[in-house]
């Protein structure tokens, strides 16, 4: 991750864009672009692929392989919804985040924002789209430039998108943003080191909000925070969502936080989605063995649960994404794996046996032997 860049990645020279009509102010209800209340998703991701080439040689570079960080991921993000992407390290969830905000270019596949594929856009058109998709980073220590004041950090998006706020108004905007995220507006001239981790994360969130985006991609936004501060930031994110009608892509490894904040959850393993559903479908009626193992491994803060928990201990580690297993990528750690799993990669769809079952068990799960198993004791 870059050490200093603002939430909005700069794309070439900041050409003066068309003045945006009615760039709303924090506090008012009108979101950036008015949209009809259609069920149409704001973001459609289709067969997204990102491979990082592995090369050998210094003068003559030869590609010897590829890290298949993201390998065929599809999902929709609806307006005002929070979609969680969970998975362990190396599963590709952060790469998905970078692809969504345009910090990486996809090897293949589409990211459609309001029906338009943004991975093919460039120049002014791309810049306009990026205004609406902003990012909040994990580490509040390295994602803020230590030599810039808080005011400059939060106001930097306006340098890149000058049409978003006239020059004379920027300072006031920044102060409003500070207030919105629960910081003292008097802090504009302070530097990041004068703030605690939780406060810094609020600064990062304020920067993400500066351009009044529709979508915020948050990559592990609360993972670096202490428990008592974490809940403050989670509540803040929820409040902002209601206030500004934001859609979130919330990337995290902490399944408890994800359950709390997300409407729908995508479980990712080694570059692919294993299961996708509402929080009830995923947490109470998981059908993919990986989801079940993942959920069962989460320690529950209840000592009485020690005895009556269904624990699934997975053997081994996640294989390398440079050399993933054939067929189903989870098969090397799966207790249900059979020959078929090595030959045919299971698609992410509602498994045949559940297609006619009403209720929460009917949701996409990429497993040949999908089967319901409740692993989370009901609280």
């Amino acid at each position, binding site marked *: 991750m870059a050490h200093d860049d603002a939430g909005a990645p700069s794309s070439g020279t900041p050409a003066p864009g068309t003045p945006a009509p009615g760039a709303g102010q924090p506090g008012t209800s009108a979101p950036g672009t008015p949209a009809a209340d259609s069920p149409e998703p704001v973001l459609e991701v289709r067969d997204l692929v990102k491979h990082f080439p592995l090369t050998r040689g210094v003068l003559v570079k030869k590609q010897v392989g590829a890290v298949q960080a993201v390998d065929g991921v599809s999902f929709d993000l609806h307006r005002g919804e929070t979609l969680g992407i969970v998975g*362990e*390290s190396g599963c590709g969830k952060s790469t998905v985040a970078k692809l969504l905000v345009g910090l990486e270019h996809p090897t293949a596949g589409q990211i459609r924002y309001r029906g338009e594929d943004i991975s093919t856009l460039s120049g002014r058109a791309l810049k306009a789209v990026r205004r609406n998709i902003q990012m909040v980073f994990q580490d509040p220590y390295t994602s803020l430039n230590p030599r810039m004041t808080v005011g400059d950090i939060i106001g930097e998006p306006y340098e890149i998108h000058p049409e978003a706020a006239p020059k004379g108004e920027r300072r006031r905007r920044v102060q409003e943003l500070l207030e919105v995220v629960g910081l003292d507006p008097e802090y504009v001239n302070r530097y990041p080191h004068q703030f*605690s981790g*939780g*406060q810094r994360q609020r600064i990062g969130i304020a920067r993400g909000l500066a351009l009044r985006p529709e979508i915020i991609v948050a990559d592990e936004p609360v993972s670096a925070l*202490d*428990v*008592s*501060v*974490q*809940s*403050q930031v*989670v*509540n803040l994110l*929820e409040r902002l969502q209601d206030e500004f009608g934001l859609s979130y892509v919330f990337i995290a*490894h902490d*399944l*408890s*936080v994800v*359950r*709390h*904040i997300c409407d729908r959850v995508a479980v990712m393993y080694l570059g692919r989605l294993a299961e996708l559903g509402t*929080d*009830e479908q995923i*947490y109470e009626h998981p059908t993919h063995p990986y989801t079940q*193992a*993942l*959920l069962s*491994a*989460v*320690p*529950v*803060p*209840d*000592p*009485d*649960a*020690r005895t009556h928990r269904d*624990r699934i*201990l*997975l053997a*081994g*580690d*996640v294989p390398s994404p440079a050399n993933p297993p054939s067929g189903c990528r989870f098969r090397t750690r799966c207790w249900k794996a059979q020959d078929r799993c090595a030959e045919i990669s299971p698609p992410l769809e509602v498994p045949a046996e559940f297609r006619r079952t009403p209720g929460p068990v009917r949701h996409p799960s990429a497993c040949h032997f999908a089967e319901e198993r409740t692993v*989370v*004791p*009901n*609280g």
Partner: protein
Amino acid sequence: MTHQEAAPEPTGTAAAVAEPPLLDVRDLRVEFRTRDGVAKAVNGVSYHVARGQTLAVLGESGSGKSVTAQAVMGILDSPPGFLTGGEIVFQGRDLLTLRREERRRIRGAKMAMIFQDALSSLNPVLSVGAQLGEMFQVHEGVSRKEARARAVELMERVKIPAARERVGDYPHQFSGGMRQRIMIAMALALGPDLIIADEPTTALDVTVQAQVMDLLAELQRELTMGLILITHDLGVVADVADTIAVMYAGRIVETAPVHQLYKAPAHPYTRGLLDSIPRLDQKGRQLYAIKGMPPNLTAVPPGCPFHPRCPLVRDVCRTDPPPLYEVGPGRTSACHFWKETLDGAR
């Protein structure tokens, strides 16, 4: 808690009544002398742990949980850290009165530590076999060949697959979970009576965390060691601890057997922590949030250090630091209003 060994323990924990605790830390004080002033990182901490028992020390960053452990192990960075008071009684002897050489012999052989970050705790230019074997060469004077054989044995003990083939591998060739197993192996090498694990699974993924915690708990039971688990994770604690000590701003604010602490906390800070964690098994809308943030240790508020953030604060809290009240068998709380808290006041 220092007065407690004499009192009989009606709760059915494994703690022996007559046997003195394995480790008894009494009124420990550590301060850091920095340019910004003196930070009292550990301010009168007492806890004890018996053989075969797991004590979890729970706290957020800056609470002093790790510094206490470093002082116990004798690996405190000094300066800037200074041990200014207290006793560390291990197997009946106050470690602070021992000579450096004697202390060194205990460290490693009798008490060992597992760190959070296995990659930076291991030497990157030595094979893991050499690092494990070194323990036996230095402490027991065995030959290099013998040391290597014992290293393989240890690696098998912590369930590293193909130990014999991997003994010559370097730390970077292992995954995070495997490296943490090597750290555990290293801690176990000389058969210690006490293990201090400082956030041993924080850097690991959940499925790997579960493997490593299970291994640690299993070995602890098998070898009836005392285990001090330092963590911020209320979930991990609930899974393995017998007793819990909750730290805040350099002090212990509550000690209790695990089941009782989760059922009815006796300190508002503990209650706040329990209320503010999102739960895997519950979908709630608004999370409870403890207001404000932990104090700067160079300027801890007078009276109860938690009072600016406490929902139950009254005048006395702003002036009088609460003592550790005995609130039940094996339970203490540093809150003037522990009774109200215990009864569920929020």
